[in-house]
């Protein structure tokens, strides 16, 4: 995994609240047995009409979405299922960060394991970010700050271990594998 330190990228906004994982990646695309190419299917039913033609009024089909790495979305983003295909699809599409006023637990956990940084900001700053869709934002994971083009900035929280792994491009499984002695001791004492 590529280390995540500082990201400067344009944003796109999807102000709808409660964007669920079925919208991010519809279930019929979960029959894959690998992770490849899911970006093409991201937000499929919002992106394409019934004949598979791009809907020109959907933000990801507009020129400003090209190369945008930050998604600013409405409250409770990523609610619904545990499918890791959701962050896989967003990362494959080109996103490196999702910003909202709240982010669903399982989605957040999954995102952090795939180099996709979930950021929760206050409602006022969120409104500011939605208005500034298309501007370049700077996300600094060292400093835990997110900054707009006109230098309005906020600190955000990120779980310290996930942050450490993201900044070092480290897989969380390596840490768990390093706990083998403790796991063995636990099993000997408590597990049948």
């Amino acid at each position, binding site marked *: 995994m590529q280390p995540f330190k500082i990201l400067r990228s344009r944003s796109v906004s999807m*102000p*709808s*609240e*409660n964007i*669920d994982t*079925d*919208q991010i990646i*519809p*279930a*019929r695309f*979960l*029959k*894959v*047995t*690998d*992770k490849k190419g899911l970006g093409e299917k991201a937000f499929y*039913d919002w992106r394409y009409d*019934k004949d598979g033609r791009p809907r020109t009024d959907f933000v990801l089909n507009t020129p400003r979405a090209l190369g945008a790495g930050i998604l600013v979305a*409405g*409250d*409770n983003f990523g*609610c*619904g*299922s*545990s*499918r*890791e295909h959701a*962050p896989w699809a967003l990362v494959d599409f080109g996103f490196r960060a999702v910003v909202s006023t*709240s982010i*669903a*637990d*399982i989605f957040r*956990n*999954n995102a952090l*394991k*795939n180099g996709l940084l979930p950021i929760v900001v206050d409602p006022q700053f969120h409104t500011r970010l939605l208005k500034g869709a298309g501007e370049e934002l700077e996300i600094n994971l060292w400093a835990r700050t997110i900054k707009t083009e006109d230098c309005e900035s906020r600190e955000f929280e990120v*779980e*310290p*271990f996930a942050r*450490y792994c993201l900044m070092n491009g480290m897989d*969380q*499984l390596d*840490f*768990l*594998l390093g*706990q*083998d002695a*403790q*796991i063995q001791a*636990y*099993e000997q004492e*408590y*597990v049948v």
Partner: protein
Amino acid sequence: MPATTLFEKVWEAHQVTPETEDTPAVLYIDLHLIHEVTSPQAFDELRKRGLKVRRPDKTVATMDHSTPTLPPDERGNWPFIDQLAAKQVKKLEDNCAEFGITLHALGGPHQGIVHVIGPELGLTQPGSTIVCGDSHTSTHGAFGALAHGIGTSEVGHVLATQCLLQRKPKTFAINVEGALQPGVGAKDLVLAVINKIGVGGGTGHVLEFRGEAIRALSMEARMTVCNMAIEAGARAGMIAPDETTFAYLKDREHAPKGEAWDKAVARWKTLRTDEGAVFDREVTIDASQVEPRITYGTNPEMSVGVSETVPQPNTRSDERALAYMGLEAGERMQGKKVDVVFIGSCTNSRIEDLREAAGVMHGRKVAENVRALIVPGSRSIKEQAEAEGLGDIFREAGAQWREPGCSMCIAMNGDQLQPGELAVSTSNRNFEGRQGTGGRTLLAGPATAAAAAVTGMITDARSLQGVEYATV
């Protein structure tokens, strides 16, 4: 000893390493359930790293999402929707064989929806930690287990180490006082809870459902309630085990036997929130005020009593939801014509749900404008329903009585709505397109769904059940 909650007791007993400021807790997992959709990439990761499954004896697999619910042909070939689905199922078979994992395969005696077969086989036990790459793993909390849905990376973590990295969640008591009225069930109750706390209201919390109305529920009903904890965004839902729990588990295949059973029950009896223990949040709901509920929008929070009208939208998202659903604010729900009825899913496909539906459908016919699908949660439920004559009731009514699986809840296997179709469904999610692109879902309990099937419209099932009730 300080007073602690049920959740804290289970959490503390499973800490291999407690959390620190820098690192999450390492939590030991007693049971890992896997299925075909969220596991293949995790097994690939194991192969890539040359790792084994640490505890195949604590790992159980089944296939449910991509599987057909129509029977196999005379040569034993199942009618998969496409090659991808068939390949995904085959991949699970191969992975289980390679890594030594028990698999309840298609056509086998214990195949079924992963959250239905775990409890049915007695694998789901009080005080245990359970994970599965599926958000509705919260179902198992009905037994006083701590049960989380996890992503595929975490499926890999648990396969390799039998452990999960977790930050300690907060606790949230859902006190349900009083008694449910006749004709009002667990699904109605949990829809009322989600309506009260919101679709994101449980985020970061483990819910404990407690109070008189919860104690009075059967295990099937408790599973329906905990199943939908995730629909309020909760990390898990739990109910303290009691005599109802023990009676359900006794003599099940994987339940302890003999002396071990007595010891287990003695231990399980300690799994309750102590007097004076403090929750981070609490709400109280009066069960007697809950009426049969139905959703009108595109998330499970958006529900009303079946006798009520569609509420006024408050936000742009609400407006979008009503536009998608083709419903107008102020419109009455009752009397609205429906195209499809789906009775099934990990929320409502157990024997009690089928009995409830059959009670309404007995001696009646599915309306001409309706396609009704009834999909049992497991092979053994299908057999029990046949033995009880429920299968005959469904067939005689003109419903399609299918093979077990997730079916139209997630619409991966070809069981799906056509664009624009309106369905009453006993499943758990009414998201846009959840049951098929352009399909519109109204979530409700089994009786309401069965009533819609036989009347062709949204109906208060109590009018068909001979239950006396006051209209709002």
